[in-house]
């Protein structure tokens, strides 16, 4: 997929907004002992809309900014977000799923990849991290929260990036079906 300068600007602004919103507001809203995490949702949404390479690059830089803003180990969130973004992008390239529940499922899977991947990396780095039923419960609650908010978050991100995205093949197909291959503008 060809990435236009307009799309790059929008992705940069989206990445900054997501991390700041997450760190300054969403992380401080606790419901049933867990908080939502916008980062994997945004990365998965970009992967699903822009493809695997853009998804992976967006994941890398969002993760890096996230770690820098929270003074965490640099590279940790980048690594898990790269995988989430690349995975979502590959799903689009191989299957191009159309169902309404796709954002929910992709959001939940991306959250699971990042949270479990994060935990695994912590163990490998030797950080004395807690492992317990409580931790599992919190991770599951985060996945459920993210699945619930995935549909509006994906819609919002589509709205933000939509004007800068190249013509969506899905839209092209739909237009071909309804207008006999011509855009309504060219028909007029």
């Amino acid at each position, binding site marked *: 997929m060809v990435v236009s300068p307009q799309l790059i600007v929008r992705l940069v602004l989206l990445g900054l907004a997501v991390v700041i919103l997450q760190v300054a507001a969403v992380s401080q809203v606790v419901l049933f002992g867990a908080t939502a995490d916008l980062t994997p949702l945004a990365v998965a949404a970009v992967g699903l809309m822009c493809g695997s*390479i853009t998804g992976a690059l967006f994941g890398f830089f969002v993760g890096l900014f996230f770690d820098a803003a929270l003074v965490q180990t640099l590279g940790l969130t980048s690594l898990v977000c790269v995988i989430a973004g690349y995975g979502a992008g590959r799903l689009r390239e191989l299957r191009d799923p159309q169902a309404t529940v796709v954002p929910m499922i992709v959001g939940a899977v991306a959250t699971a990849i990042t949270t479990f991947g994060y935990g695994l990396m912590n163990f490998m780095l030797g950080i004395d991290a*807690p492992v*317990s039923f409580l931790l599992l419960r919190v991770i599951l609650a985060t996945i459920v929260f993210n699945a619930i908010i995935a549909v509006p978050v994906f819609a919002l991100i589509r709205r933000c990036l939509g004007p800068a995205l190249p013509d969506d093949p899905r839209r092209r197909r739909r237009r071909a079906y309804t207008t006999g291959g011509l855009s309504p503008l060219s028909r007029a």
Partner: protein
Amino acid sequence: MYDKTVRRRRAVLGALVVSSLILLTAYFREPGGGALHHVQRGILEVVSPIQEGASRALKPVQDLFGWVGDTVSAKGDLQEARKERDQWRTIATRNASATRENAQLRKTLGLDAAVTDMALYGPKTARVIGQSPTLWYAKITIDKGSSSGIRAGMPVIASDGKGGQDTGLIGRVDQAAAGTAVIRLITDSTVAVAARTVTGSAMGVVKPSPGNPRDLILDYVAKDDTPATGQTVVTAGTVSKTSELDSVYPPDLPIGRITRVDDQGAADQTPHLRPFVDLRRVQFVQVLTEKVDHNR
């Protein structure tokens, strides 16, 4: 053409994964004053005013969700709170007479100048502007830093505003930039606080409980000590007579209450505490910038 696309995709993925791993390794191995840490502090300094603005602007939304969460859990808390209130009333009555007696005895012994006021520790109030969403990193970001006299290592206290006994030690300053600082919370695995029960029945080191980041343990309690459920645990302050071994934390800062004691009376008895402050609900903190009498 197809092969070229596949190769390019794989190359980008590989490069990003390798870059992440290099960053991770370099960051992990370098000391606190290294280049990457320096860059990170710079980014923190740039981002913190934006974070602060966003935090203030989104406060009503936070409060709305907080209200929903609080309402759900409030019903269950009420019964427990009533029981606790009755217990505290009895204790308060006993304490009132003990305080009177203590004041008289202090006067008699000429100890009027002893530290009783938190103002002596130079508290600086700051707003929480950032928080990690994961359980793995127990850190928060505040809107004051070295320009307000805040330095790494200073103790931090807070109240979660839930009422009752909700004020206590929450951690220490980990890093301070000009206009912002990062607090490492007491639930972080690298934080340990010398502590004792308020009655003096047990002494040890408060650490996070392995397996539950919202639970603390009082480790290294001697076999002869007699910790009991319901006792309040406070910081021990400096116990060493050598000035090089000053405690970071002033004495008598409340930390939490003992909820249970594992293997009571054994050599490895372990009291578990619930922190007084709900660390995920903290909105304002106080950094204690002064030491009084070497925290004795």
